[in-house]
């Protein structure tokens, strides 16, 4: 396999991992706020704080990883997206600023503030919406060349139904993934009231999630027929995705096997993102940047892959260690440590 395909696969994997763990984090923020508004915060907040505190910095690094990897394996992609994303990217940064300070404020400085919980919840929905514009732009038709620079066509972006369909999908998916994970986590912690509440959230967001997915799918056919046709050829991947969606929902509905149901949710997104990604080939940015033609030079690509492999060798054991200490240490989850 060539280095650019290997690199791209690694990036894809990081995007997928970020999608899952960041969704859990972002959604938890929203639920924390929602619970506060509906006076159910006593049920949820301790559980959420217990999961989030040890992992939030790690979540952020996945994001940096993805865009650094993209920009270094494909420097032209870095140039195009960098030029185009000044406003959405800066919005993401400002919101990350708000979230980062929330953690310090709430969890380390330990004082509750309603305004901060609101900002924390809202930023959890706006960050994915702003990041999703990157995916929208990648379908092509949103950039303009002028005097040797690249500009984003803001009006086009803001008036195109496709870009709103993507935003809708991003936000709904965040809530859906998060509700599923937190249900599983509450169940593991033996926190019955929290589990019940979160299970109802998980069931509630299922229908909007599948509707948003289909809407975005249909809008791609108008925005970018080539990509759409490629995805149709991969119909079985999306079929698998829908199948896992149904199994996941069924398990939560039956109130059994929450762990398995969350795995189904992950597989649902795994296949959807895989079908989307493979269908996206050979373009990273439609009609502008191709995977093979615009990759970095072989020496750099190889060096990045070696660094990547070495980094994983170091990180995976460390991550397992931390997960065993927090996420999967039954005593910790139950709050006894």
């Amino acid at each position, binding site marked *: 396999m060539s280095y650019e395909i290997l690199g791209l696969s690694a990036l894809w994997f990081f995007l997928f991992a970020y999608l899952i763990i960041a969704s859990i984090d972002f959604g938890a923020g929203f639920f924390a706020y929602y619970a506060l508004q509906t006076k159910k915060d006593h049920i949820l907040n301790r559980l959420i704080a217990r999961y989030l505190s040890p992992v939030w*910095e*790690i979540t952020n690094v996945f994001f940096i990883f993805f865009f650094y990897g993209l920009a270094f394996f494909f420097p032209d992609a870095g140039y195009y997206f960098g030029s185009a994303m000044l406003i959405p990217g800066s919005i993401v940064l400002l919101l990350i600023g708000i979230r980062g300070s929330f953690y*310090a404020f709430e969890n*380390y400085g330990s004082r509750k503030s309603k305004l901060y919980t609101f900002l924390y919840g809202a930023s959890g929905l706006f960050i994915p919406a702003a990041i999703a514009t990157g995916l929208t732009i990648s379908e092509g038709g949103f950039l303009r060349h002028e005097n040797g620079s690249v500009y984003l066509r803001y009006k086009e972006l803001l008036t195109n139904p496709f870009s709103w369909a993507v935003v809708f999908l991003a936000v709904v998916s965040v809530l859906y993934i998060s509700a599923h994970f937190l249900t599983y986590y509450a169940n593991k912690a033996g926190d019955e009231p929290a589990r019940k509440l979160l299970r109802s959230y998980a069931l509630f967001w299922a229908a909007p999630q599948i509707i948003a997915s289909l809407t975005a799918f249909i809008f791609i056919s108008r925005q970018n027929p080539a990509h759409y046709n490629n995805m149709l050829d991969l119909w079985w991947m999306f079929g698998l995705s829908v199948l896992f969606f149904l199994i996941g929902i069924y398990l939560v509905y039956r109130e059994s096997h929450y762990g398995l149901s969350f795995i189904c949710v992950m597989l649902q997104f795994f296949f959807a993102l895989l079908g989307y990604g493979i269908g996206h080939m050979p373009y990273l940015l439609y009609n502008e940047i191709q995977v093979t033609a615009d990759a*970095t030079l072989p020496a750099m690509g190889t060096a990045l892959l070696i660094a990547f492999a070495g980094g994983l060798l170091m990180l995976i054991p460390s991550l397992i260690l*931390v997960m065993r200490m927090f996420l999967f240490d039954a005593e910790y989850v139950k709050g006894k440590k």
Partner: protein
Amino acid sequence: MFAYDSVILARMLTSMTLVFHIIFATIGAGVPLLICAAEYVGIRKRDPKYVLLARRWTRGYVIIVAVGVVTGTAIGLQLFLLWPTFMQIAGHVIGLPLFMETFAFFFEAIFLGAYIYTWDRFKGRYTHWYLSLPVVIGGGMSAVFITTVNAFMNTPQGFTLDGRTITSVDPIMAMLNPATPSKVFHVLTSSYMTSGAILAAITAFFILKYGNNTYYKKALKLTMIITLIFSIFTAIAGDTSAKFLANYQPEKLAAAEWHFKTEKGADLILFGRLTEDNEIQGAIHLPKLLSFLSFGDFNSEVTGLDKVDADLIPPLWIHYMFDLMVIFGAFGILISMLFIVFMFWKKRDQYNKWLLRAIVVNAPLAMLAIEFGWIFAEVGRQPWILRGYMRVAEGAISSPYVHYVFAAFLILYVLLGTFVTLVLVRLYKKNPIQKEWEMRFPDTLFGGDQK
């Protein structure tokens, strides 16, 4: 005109982010060493006071890191958002260390998470302390990798250019460019020195306010020893950096030293001011010292600005940045050395009020020295963004919206700065040392005397 404006704004926004970020980056890389040292001494000497020290420092450190993650993400993304053309070229050549920096930080974040949540959870005496080592190493490696990128901007190598297309790349050679050793050395030592100075200043402040006791004495001794060690290393690193500049970036050194004419036995010039005809007034001249600092020989020839193209001369005000950095750094050495000397010289009291006050002042000065040093390093590279290859104006974005972004980030940094101060103050006020002491050591008075 509009392209030019967006270059200025892009520079202002990048400078603002860096000036803010460097505070958190310095503490982020440096303080783990002090925490690690304190916990080690505590375990080694079976003295829980040192472990308590490590615990209390860690609480504040975690908040600094939280803000550092935010500002670090900001500068990481802003490189692409504000300097897309530069990053397109640089990404081909110097992407490797930036990529590895992410790994190093990841490593640090994972173990920091483990470290802060596992006090008292292990049976082995040293087990918890081991968790601090990856934090120290991860923080240090982050600094190393990022610094190689900055070094590359000063002395780029490891690639061949054909027009605007890079035709071959050697990523390792690009990382290990001539500026790397001295810069890495300087960044690491100054970060440890400043972190030591900050923790020493906090301790000295409390002694001045609440009176002295064993706990504070131990804290001050530990932090001052570390400050002294690393301030001496910082001075050596500064000397190495000057020699590097003389050899590889003579225009930066010449601009910093107002050295207009290439000559042998060049004087070192301190402060002063320039007239309109670039004549130096009111400066202190140290004869032949610049030659000595540049090449280790009082009579060596130092390149002056007369050998540099007029449009490639960096702004001459960096002279003040350079001088202030050196003076503040020297102050740090002097203060920490006095403390250590007084510690052994029984006639003198190392806890006398004036010395304690100087230790308090030393912390902001050390941080300012780092800020001035970076301003000197960055402005001294002008007009280049990639020395010899690309000018700053060619690397920037052209967008009519940069001023909005600038305003938004200014607000963010003001808020973050205010809030982080408030949170830190509240954190320590809510759980003052006296209270925590009574909880942990109920048998002794605060400070260690028997009840």
